[in-house]
């Protein structure tokens, strides 16, 4: 399937913090239906890159061109512990200009949280928090999803469910960039893989059905 117009284009992005260069000359593009796995050692700048792409951080240099609405799932759930799952989703839906209880109910259903919808989010386990966070990220039907370690803290069953959800979203045309250490679990999700080390991005490799773990290992060997 030929890739259509990219939903996000980053050109020469750099980011400094407290005099340190955290990102240098990062350029990439993602198109609908592509799931880019972003890998690399700790401290490489992956979280920072995601935040710059999301627009939460300003790039010190370079440019990020966002051509579709985006949603983000990060380490913190971006939810209010004192409010219920439903109230949280309703709040963010309103800010996005998305109306109707129907949407919120459908999302809760999609992530399997209908039963606990009216419980305070502060009482939730990590897995449940993550599910509501994904619902929050999807509330406005974004064309691009940015996910920072979405599977961390989830048990096998939850991980598999989430991976399946991401696969389904990708098939429907959502683009995504996923930072993760758990490549085996994202085997059926990722379409491309790229490595960030010391603030610099390596070449983007299409997976084309290969095991991301293998490709990554080979990349590491090639560099070592």
């Amino acid at each position, binding site marked *: 399937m030929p890739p259509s117009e990219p939903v996000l284009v980053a050109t020469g992005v750099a980011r400094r913090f407290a005099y340190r260069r955290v990102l240098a000359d990062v350029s990439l593009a993602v198109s609908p239906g592509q799931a880019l796995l972003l890998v690399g050692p700790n401290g490489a700048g992956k979280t920072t890159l995601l935040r710059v792409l999301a627009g939460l951080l300003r790039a010190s240099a370079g440019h990020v061109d966002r051509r579709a609405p985006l949603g983000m799932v*990060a380490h913190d759930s971006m939810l209010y512990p004192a409010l219920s799952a439903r109230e949280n989703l309703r709040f963010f839906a309103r*800010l996005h200009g998305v109306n109707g209880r129907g949407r919120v109910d459908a999302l809760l259903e999609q992530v399997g949280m209908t039963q606990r919808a009216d419980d*305070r989010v502060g009482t939730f386990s990590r897995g449940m928090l993550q599910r509501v966070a994904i619902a*929050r990220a999807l509330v406005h039907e974004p064309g691009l999803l940015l996910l920072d370690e979405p599977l961390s803290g989830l048990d096998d069953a939850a991980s598999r469910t989430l991976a399946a959800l991401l696969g389904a979203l990708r098939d429907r045309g959502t683009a995504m960039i996923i930072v993760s250490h758990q490549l085996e679990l994202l085997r059926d999700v990722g379409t491309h893989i790229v490595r960030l080390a010391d603030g610099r991005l390596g070449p983007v490799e299409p997976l084309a059905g290969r095991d991301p773990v293998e490709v990554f290992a080979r990349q590491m060997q090639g560099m070592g």
Partner: protein
Amino acid sequence: MRELTRAAWHIAVKDLAIEWRTKTAFASGLVFAVLVLAVLFFSRDPTAVSSQDIAPGAIWVTFTFASMLGLNRAFLLEREQRALDGILLTPIPRTAVFWGKFVANLAFVGAIQAVSLPLFVLFYDVPIWARLPELVLVIVMATVAFVAVGTLLSAMVVRTRYAELMLPLLLLPFLVPPLVSGVQVTARLLEGRPLSDLSGWLRLIAGFDLAFVTLAASLFHVVLDE
């Protein structure tokens, strides 16, 4: 403009809903108010200082500290799970966050003031009822001043170390004009002076409000950037 108002409204309602759920800040504010009013009342020499003399100072110190408690809470609740990031990922204009927080803070402080004022009358036996409308006017005007500057500053310091120390330190010089005006006008009102006598102070607070609400709203986006 309508988008701004609607977004600000949603944020304000959300803040107040959260506060209503937990009530911790409100409860501390009330306890604090009672403490301050009581301590100031009982610590004076009743033969030398009448309760009327000390009353304006007492009520305004109470209001100021209640405002600070409210301000601290406002951005702290956004930090827990980085919910503010969630808000920044939506298409709402960033000033909406300022206005929403500003309105929520005003409501919070207003609630504490509404409860403190009767307590104040109880303790200090001052004739506020005759001058209530004018008193409310000056209280609202001065509170708008504290809360506008405080909302901006609390957003700024919440991210720094020693946030609880930084807020009062930075806020103090900005409290001087509204606080002094508030105390002076309250004192004169309780003495029975007409509002026309106090035009100097009132114009001062009005000017301050205009200048600083505008400034705080315009500079707010700088404080949201990382």
